[in-house]
C-alpha cells in the first residue's frame, strides 16, 4: 500500500480506472460552470480479511465509484456481499483482521483540497473523521457505550474531533442543536443512558452524533433495519430533510431495496465483493440490467397496487474463499451460459448520465434481462 503523505495535488482526483470515464462533456449537473469535484472518488478498492495464519479472503474486489456533493447513494445486496466492509474501508475503520490491500479513496473537502484517505496517518484520520466524514454503524442498539449518558458520548466525540478545542458551553450547545435536528428533546436525552431510550430514539441519537461536526459525508449502515415501520418512516423522512438542510453527501447501506427507492439518487448493487450494477434510482428500479438486481427488487413486497408474485433467489451467495469461475452469480443465474463461466464480466456502460449516474451492469447477457413483476392478484 502507498504510504506517501496526502494531499494529492490534483483537486479532481484520479481519473476513472474502474468503469469508463464519461467522455468529453465530463460529468455535470448543468451546462454552465465547471462540475464540482466528487466528495469521494473510489478506485479499484480492495479489502481482505485474514482468516488464518496464511489465508485471507478478498471481501472487496476492485470497487470504483464517485460520490458527488449532496448526493445520496444506496449500497444494496445480500448479507455478506461486502456492504459494511466498504463503508468501514471508506472511513478507514476496518477491524484489525481487515486490510485495504489496494486501490485509492480520494476525499475532496469543501476547500477543494483532495486527500488520499488510504494514506492518511492516525492523527490525520482523527481530524478528518467526524468533522469531514462520519459513520452511523449497523445495529443502533449496541453502538452506544451502555455506561455513559448520550450527552457524555456526544461530548467525547466533540472533544476528540472538533478543530482547535472546544469549551463546555459550546459542547452543550452543539449537542443540543444536533439532538433537536433529529427531533429529540435535548433536556431529556442528554442525561439519558442508552437503555433508557427506545430503539428509534437511539437510532436518531446516533444520527445526531454523526451530524455533530457537520460532516460533508455521512455513511449510514442499515439505519432502519431494527426499527418498526412507523419509526422507520420517521427516520427516512428525517434523513431526507437533514440532507436537504445540511447538504451532506450520504451513502447508506441496506439489504432492503425499498429504502433505496425512498432515499437514494443512485444505487450500487454489490455481489461477492464487487459492484455488479450501478445507476440512477430511476434506471435501477424501472429497468435493472443485472439479473441479480432484478431478482432483489422482485423479492420486496409492495404495499400499494397489485399483489405480485415474490420469488427468492435460489441458492446462496458464494463463499469468498472459493469463488466460482467467471461470473460469481452464475451458479444462481437462470441466464447463465458457457460464456459466463469463462471470465468474470466487467461493468458495461448501458446509458451515459452525468454526475456518475451512468447506468452500468456487469452481465454479458444484460440485453436479455427484462424486468417485470408477475401479478397474482389485482388490487
Amino acid at each position: 500500500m502507498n504510504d506517501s503523505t496526502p494531499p494529492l495535488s490534483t483537486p479532481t482526483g484520479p481519473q476513472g480506472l474502474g468503469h469508463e470515464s464519461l467522455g468529453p462533456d465530463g460529468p455535470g449537473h448543468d451546462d454552465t460552470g465547471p462540475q464540482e469535484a466528487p466528495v469521494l472518488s473510489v478506485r479499484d478498492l480492495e479489502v481482505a480479511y485474514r482468516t488464518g495464519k496464511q489465508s485471507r479472503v478478498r471481501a472487496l474486489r476492485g470497487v470504483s465509484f464517485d460520490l458527488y456533493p449532496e448526493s445520496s447513494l444506496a449500497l444494496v445486496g445480500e448479507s455478506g456481499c461486502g456492504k459494511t466492509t466498504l463503508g468501514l474501508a471508506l472511513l478507514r475503520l476496518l477491524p484489525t483482521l481487515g486490510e485495504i490491500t489496494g486501490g485509492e479513496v480520494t476525499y475532496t473537502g469543501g476547500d477543494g483540497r483532495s486527500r488520499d484517505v488510504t494514506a492518511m496517518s492516525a492523527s490525520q484520520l482523527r481530524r478528518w473523521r467526524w468533522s469531514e466524514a462520519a459513520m452511523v454503524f449497523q445495529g443502533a442498539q449496541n453502538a452506544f457505550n451502555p455506561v455513559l449518558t448520550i450527552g457524555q458520548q456526544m461530548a467525547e466525540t466533540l472533544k476528540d474531533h472538533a478543530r482547535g478545542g472546544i469549551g463546555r458551553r459550546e459542547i452543550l450547545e452543539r449537542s443540543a442543536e444536533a439532538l433537536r435536528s433529529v427531533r429529540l428533546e435535548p433536556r431529556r436525552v442528554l442525561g439519558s443512558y442508552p437503555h433508557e431510550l427506545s430503539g428509534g430514539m437511539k437510532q436518531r441519537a446516533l444520527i445526531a452524533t454523526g451530524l455533530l461536526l457537520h460532516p460533508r459525508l455521512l455513511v449510514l449502515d442499515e439505519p432502519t433495519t431494527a426499527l418498526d415501520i412507523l419509526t422507520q418512516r420517521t427516520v427516512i423522512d428525517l434523513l431526507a430533510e437533514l440532507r436537504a438542510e445540511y447538504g451532506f453527501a450520504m451513502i447508506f447501506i441496506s439489504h432492503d431495496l425499498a429504502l433505496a427507492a425512498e432515499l437514494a439518487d443512485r444505487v450500487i448493487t454489490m455481489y461477492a465483493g464487487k459492484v455488479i450494477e450501478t445507476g440512477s434510482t430511476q434506471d435501477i428500479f424501472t429497468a435493472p440490467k443485472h439479473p441479480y438486481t432484478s431478482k432483489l427488487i422482485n423479492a420486496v413486497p409492495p404495499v400499494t397496487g397489485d399483489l405480485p408474485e415474490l420469488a427468492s433467489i435460489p441458492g446462496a451467495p458464494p463463499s469468498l474463499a472459493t469463488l466460482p469461475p467467471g461470473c460469481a452469480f452464475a451458479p444462481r443465474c437462470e441466464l447463465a451460459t458457457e460464456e459466463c463461466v469463462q471470465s468474470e464480466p466487467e461493468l458495461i456502460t448501458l446509458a451515459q448520465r452525468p454526475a456518475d449516474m451512468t447506468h452500468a451492469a456487469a452481465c454479458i447477457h444484460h440485453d436479455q434481462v427484462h424486468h417485470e413483476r408477475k401479478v397474482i392478484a389485482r388490487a
Partner: protein
Amino acid sequence: MPAPAPLIELDGASQVFHVKGKDLPAVSDVSLSVGEGEVLCLVGESGSGKTTTARLAAGLAAPTSGAVRFEGKDLSEMTRAERREYRRAVQYIHQDPYASLNPIRSVRSTLAIPLKRHGLARTAADVDRRVDELLTTVDLTPPESYSAKFPHQMSGGQRQRVAVARGLTLSPRLLIADESTSMLDVSIRVSLLNMLTRLRTEEGVGFIYITHDLALAKYFAWEGRTAVMYLGKIVEVGPTPQVINSPQHPYTRALLEAVPEPDPELAAQKKAAGGLLSAEIPSLSDLPSGCTFHPRCPLAEDRCREIIPVLRTAPEASAQEVACMVVTDPQPAASAGTAPGGGGPP
C-alpha cells in the same frame, strides 16, 4: 353436528402486567380465531401487544381475564393429556433466531430433543430420518451438510430456518411466527414465507403471523385476515385485501403510509411520518382517555377524548370491523361518555 371449533380462539382475552405498583394492560379484550389452513396476521408498532397476544395463544401465559380455547376447549379446564396435545399442536417460532437457538447445540441435537421427548423418534436412525425430512422441508439441503452445524457456523437466514424446523418437529397444526423475518435478507425472507405458505395450503397448518410491516401482511395473509393492534387492542380487523386496499381506521392508514415502497415513484408520494400528529407512543401505565389513539390521530374530535370506541362494522367497508367512532358513527354522539369502560366486539 355443529361446525368444527377453530383451532385457536381468544375470547375477550386480556393480559395485565403489574410493574412497580402500576397496572400495564398489555392486551385488552382481544378476540380472534384461527382455523385449519387459515392465516391471521397481527400488525402494529412496537409495544402494541402482538407478542403478548401470541404468547396467550401459545399457552405461554394465562390471560388475566377472558378465555383462550383450543378446538373449543378452554385451556384452564384442560386435563393433562389435553394440555400435552395442545402443547404439541401449537408451536411458537421466536422472533429472534439468534437468541432462541442454544449456541452449544448442533442442529441435529436441537431437533432431536423435542422428537425424543414426545416419543416421535425412538432410535437414532428414526431421529436421523426425521431430522433429514425437517431440514429438507425448510430448504436446508442437502441435510447432511447442516445437521452437524452449530448456530455460530450458520447465517442468520439459516438459523431462522433451523428455528422453523424446530417448530415443525412435532407436526404442529398451528404455527405462530413472531416477526420471524424482519431482520432477514429480502430473498431469504421471501423463501421462508413461501415455504410457510406451502405448509398452510398443502398440510392445512394454521398460522398467526406477526409483523409490523403491512406489505408483508399483504403478501403472506392475502387469503386470510389481518388484525391491526394499537396499545393492546384490536382497532381494525378484516380480510387482508380489504384492510390493505380500503383501510378504515386512521391508525391502519398511518401504518400503510409508512411502509417504504420498492418503487421510487410511489415512495415520493408517501406522506411525512405516516400522517400522524405525533410519533410518541403513550405509556400503558398512563393511557390517554377515551380513544387511546386520540393524541396522535389526525381525525380526532372532542368526543374522542371521552368515549372509548368499540369494534363495529364499517359503513363504507362492511367486510371489516373498526374501533373508531368517527368512522363507524360519523354523526357526533348525542351524549358524550356513553360507553365508559367499553370495548370488545358487540
